[in-house]
């Protein structure tokens, strides 16, 4: 079985943004050098001193989830994984050549095991696709764009747009990994309501809600665009609709056939 290639799950805007960055000569090397000698060292101290490092010895099942995902997405080296106390259902990835994954405790406490496997796989898909570099550029812009002789928004708005698009890629990667549309839809909404309520919300209901959101027009539509502009993550209804459209368009099946 072939590995899941980034082409099969990357959202077009996400892929184009990364291609554009990769075309700038030497930029990748410069970014990797800066990352290696700044945040990778910095976070290595913070993470190893303040969070719990997960290994195959102390977290065998979890580590195995990541190993399985790494094999499926063709990632040769597994990143260092840390656990921190946090109530949001999220993970973070930092670093370029030596990435580190940080998992919030609530992810392990609340997300059922079969879903957790798929939830975590998107970290590996993101690393394989090269999101680390883009994340690092965003980090640099957030911290240093003010000191540049151009309006900050020239850099931050396109990067926020990219950031939203990477979540569309994550949803597709989860689908390529699990082949379970209902599960991916449930993961998008995870955290919107207590788990027992979320279990009762059907995928059709989620899609219907997304359609209603999509139908918002007029002045509200302008407000929608303005409100989402400053967000780094798309709203869940946007993700649901984008994901459903991708499945309905047949692109998922094409990607799957290419893989097998």
């Amino acid at each position: 079985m072939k590995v899941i290639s980034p082409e099969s799950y990357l959202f077009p805007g996400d892929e184009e943004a990364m291609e554009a960055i990769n075309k700038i000569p030497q930029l990748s090397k410069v970014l990797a050098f800066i990352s290696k000698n700044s945040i990778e060292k910095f976070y290595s101290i913070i993470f190893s001193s303040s969070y719990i490092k997960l290994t195959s010895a102390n977290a065998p099942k979890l580590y195995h989830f990541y190993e399985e995902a790494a094999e499926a997405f063709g990632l040769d080296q597994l990143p260092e994984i840390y656990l921190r106390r946090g109530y949001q259902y999220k993970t973070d990835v930092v670093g370029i050549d030596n990435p580190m994954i940080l998992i919030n405790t609530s992810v392990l406490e609340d997300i059922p095991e079969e879903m957790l496997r798929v939830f975590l796989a998107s970290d590996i898909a993101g690393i394989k696709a090269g999101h680390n570099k883009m994340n690092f550029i965003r980090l640099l812009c957030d911290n240093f764009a003010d000191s540049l002789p151009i309006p900050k928004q020239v850099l931050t708005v396109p990067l926020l747009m990219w950031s939203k698009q990477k979540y569309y890629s994550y949803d597709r990667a989860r689908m390529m990994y699990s082949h379970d549309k209902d599960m991916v839809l449930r993961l998008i909404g995870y955290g919107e309501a207590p788990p027992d309520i979320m279990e009762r919300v059907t995928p059709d209901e989620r899609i219907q809600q997304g359609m209603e959101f999509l139908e918002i027009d007029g002045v509200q539509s302008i407000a929608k665009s303005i409100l989402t502009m400053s967000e780094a993550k798309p709203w869940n209804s946007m993700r649901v609709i984008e994901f459903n459209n991708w499945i309905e368009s047949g692109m998922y099946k094409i990607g799957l056939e290419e893989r097998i």
Partner: protein
Amino acid sequence: MINYHENGIKASDYEYSGDREALIALKKIPVIDKLLSAYLDFTIKSGMFVQVQQNCFRVTKETYPRVYELYQICLNRLNMKQEPSLYIDLNYEYNAYATGIGSPFIVVNSSMVDDCTDGELMALMGHELGHINSSHVLYHNLARNLMVLLTSHLKALAPLISTGTVFALFDWQRKSEYTADRAGMIAAGGLQPSVDLMLRLMGKGEVQKYVDLSLDTAMKQYQDFNISKDSFIGKFLYVTQTAAMGHPWSIQRIKALSDWSKTENYAGVVSEIQRLESAEG
């Protein structure tokens, strides 16, 4: 009910050496004890304490029997002269603090009461009692006020002296946390609950289903931590990050507790507590 023993253990029996020396030096500064403590006592009583009384539940035998019972054990093990009021604040974050000068009190967040084992909770409450027992509260506040003064008004006059003093105060504050950790360990009755508490604060949470954590794994991680700050850049980042921290890095606290648990000093404190406990039956 507290059974205070005149000849029982005192804070000076377990205080971290750097902490004790700095405290002795601070106590020698004239006026501080009286003037500052009166000022802080007034501001805390009229501000923070009123808020806590309004928003938090006081722990009594009736309101939180489990916590109350554990708290009494902590008070006796640490041979506290007085019983600071204990409050529970409805809060998801893992945190607790001790404050107040003349009438000190402790606030523990509800998530800690919900999630911690009895031993972990005793280590936590013992830690806060340790701050009170060593008069840290007054000097923590002094440090905080001095920092504001030095970094704002006086910085223009003598920036180097101001910066140096601020970092020295942070350094002492970190040492005072080691003392409080030792008090927590004494209150909890051993090393394991204190280590478990630290691991919980680092992210252990309720994830035992997936993660098996122990002192051994923490010590392995301590080695990684040392490696990560071994290079030139690592050392630079470590020093600059640590300088302005009020608490030591968690992994260093576990190591410090583990080291102290093997000392004669700790053994002596434990045997004194055991002697008094067995005398009381």
